[in-house]
């Protein structure tokens, strides 16, 4: 099976987020960037499928120059090659123009399955996988915690997580886009031999001209949703720390929750 994994490089979840003085974006100096955690599940699942049925795994990534490092991480885990959409014109994209660029890079490729994380942990939009599927005129399944590809590679059964701990079991024809959720698998760490091999694996760099799209269709210019203001959320102050024996603590807090906080 030829599997594509859509991957994004994002700030590490430990990063302290600071808004710039103009309120137009976040301060990026000093931020450590990593492969989006949800995309790790996608890479791992692709590698597992390849190990079972043969084929190839290609990482497709839209991002600035520094994203190469995250692509190499995917290659070090075991993916075969990378496709890097890299151009100033792709910057400032929203979910729509991101999906547009990815779709343009993907259309000429041969693929049986597309995997990606359910959301990128920077903008938390959780939209690209569905928009990409729509633009490629294929199905998608979201928030997937289990994936079983049929032996003939023409369909798959996916379990998706819904409210109340319930799971929907969806049968989908392939190719399709599968948005991966935590619990799908345990992503492997790149081994040292894997890291060494990754340096030699090919990464095709695609600029806007090579994508076949015009600069107006991608990045900030092609975005439908514009972000106009950035702010920090209201800080939560520490409240009261109660003192005493367990019995006193229990009585005190229940009284406060009823009378002061009116929470119970």
């Amino acid at each position, binding site marked *: 099976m030829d599997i594509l994994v859509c991957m994004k490089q994002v700030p590490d*979840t430990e*990063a*302290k*987020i600071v*808004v710039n003085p103009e309120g137009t974006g976040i301060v990026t100096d000093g931020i450590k960037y990593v492969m989006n955690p949800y995309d790790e599940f996608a890479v791992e699942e692709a590698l597992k499928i390849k190990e079972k049925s043969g084929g190839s795994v290609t990482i497709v990534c839209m991002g600035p120059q520094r994203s190469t490092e995250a692509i190499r991480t995917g290659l070090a885990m075991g993916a075969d090659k990378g496709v890097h959409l890299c151009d100033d014109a792709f910057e400032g994209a929203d979910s*729509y123009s991101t999906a547009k660029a990815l779709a343009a890079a993907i259309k000429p490729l041969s693929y049986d399955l597309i995997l990606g994380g359910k959301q990128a*942990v*920077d903008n*938390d*939009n*959780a*939209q690209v996988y*569905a*928009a990409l*599927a*729509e633009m490629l005129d*294929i*199905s*998608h*399944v*979201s*928030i997937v915690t289990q994936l079983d590809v049929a032996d003939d590679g023409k369909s798959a*059964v996916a379990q*998706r*997580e819904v*409210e*109340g*701990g*319930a*799971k*929907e*079991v*969806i*049968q*989908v*024809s392939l190719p*399709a886009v599968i948005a991966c959720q*935590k619990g799908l698998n345990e992503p492997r760490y790149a081994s040292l031999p894997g890291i060494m091999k990754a340096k030699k694996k090919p990464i095709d760099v695609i600029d806007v001209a090579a994508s076949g799209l015009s600069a107006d269709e991608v990045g900030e210019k092609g975005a*439908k*949703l*514009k*972000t*106009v203001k*950035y*702010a920090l*959320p209201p800080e939560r102050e*520490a*409240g*009261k*720390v*109660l003192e005493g024996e*367990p*019995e006193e603590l*229990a009585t005190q*807090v*229940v009284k406060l*929750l009823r009378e002061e*906080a009116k*929470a*119970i």
Partner: protein
Amino acid sequence: MPQGIWVITEQKEGKLKKVSLEMLSKAKEMGQEVTALLLGSGVEGLAADLGQYGADKVLVFDADVLKDYSTDAYTKVICDAVKEGDPSVLLGPATASGKDLLPKVAARLATGLASDCVDLKLEDGKLVATRPIYAGKCVVETVTPDASPQMASIRPNVLAVGEVDASKSAEVVKKDVNVSDADMKAVLKEIIKGASEKVDLTEAAIIVSGGRAMKEADNFKLLWDLADALGAGTTVGASRAAVDSGYATHDMQVGQTGKVVNPNLYIACGISGAIQHLAGMRTSKVIVAINKDAEAPIFQKADYGLVGDLFKIVPLLTEEVKKLKAQD
């Protein structure tokens, strides 16, 4: 000229989800005609409730093929209706179904979608949506200046449900449902129910949550006992550390790589308060923290901090809550 605010409501097993009423209440404030979309099978009776919460008009799509949520069927029905009705604003819930449906609708309509919004306002016909990013470490305002309809998905349990106006009734329009087998590329085979029938974390009014200090899965029973005492609308959550240690299942995880919750009351038991956990519960109205370690970061964010042994305190809390409820 796009006109009117459309709200895609959600019902489950014939009952309207609370987020449907939250969205309608907000839509009503915006001063344009509000149309609710109701999809399902045998759900026409719910249209009356939608009117009382603010819908001027209800479009009812009632058919067997819509009984359970289906990406293909729901997308087609909604997109066809939008192309016909040309609304200015299209809102939907940021629930499991909504998060699956709305981005596909937005892409098909080539418009902008603000996901998982915590506030909305309409300024001169322009929808300004407020939404969290970086797991809530930052909050942004977004607009869709050049495309239509302006779409937003609303996080459940954040917006207020307005007053019911029993005198108000909506114009109910039954619409044809044109979905063929050929439209259905992904098919729901079955629904595997969750272990507990309790309210979902994202919709709960009160959450009792356990961390690694719970030591064993069985000890979560203490938290379930407290949750039961606190009543309906209460459920139990867990930190990532507890889930990774096998004390709780992943669907119970609250945090950056788990669920983002917004209850009235969050009781954190044996949870240290890592940034990633806080990201998932920082907007709770009231936070109670119980931890043996007085230096635990969670005490910086809790409204009421109890330094002590959760194994002693939690059962006592359960007793006190039962006493209180018995007097009510």
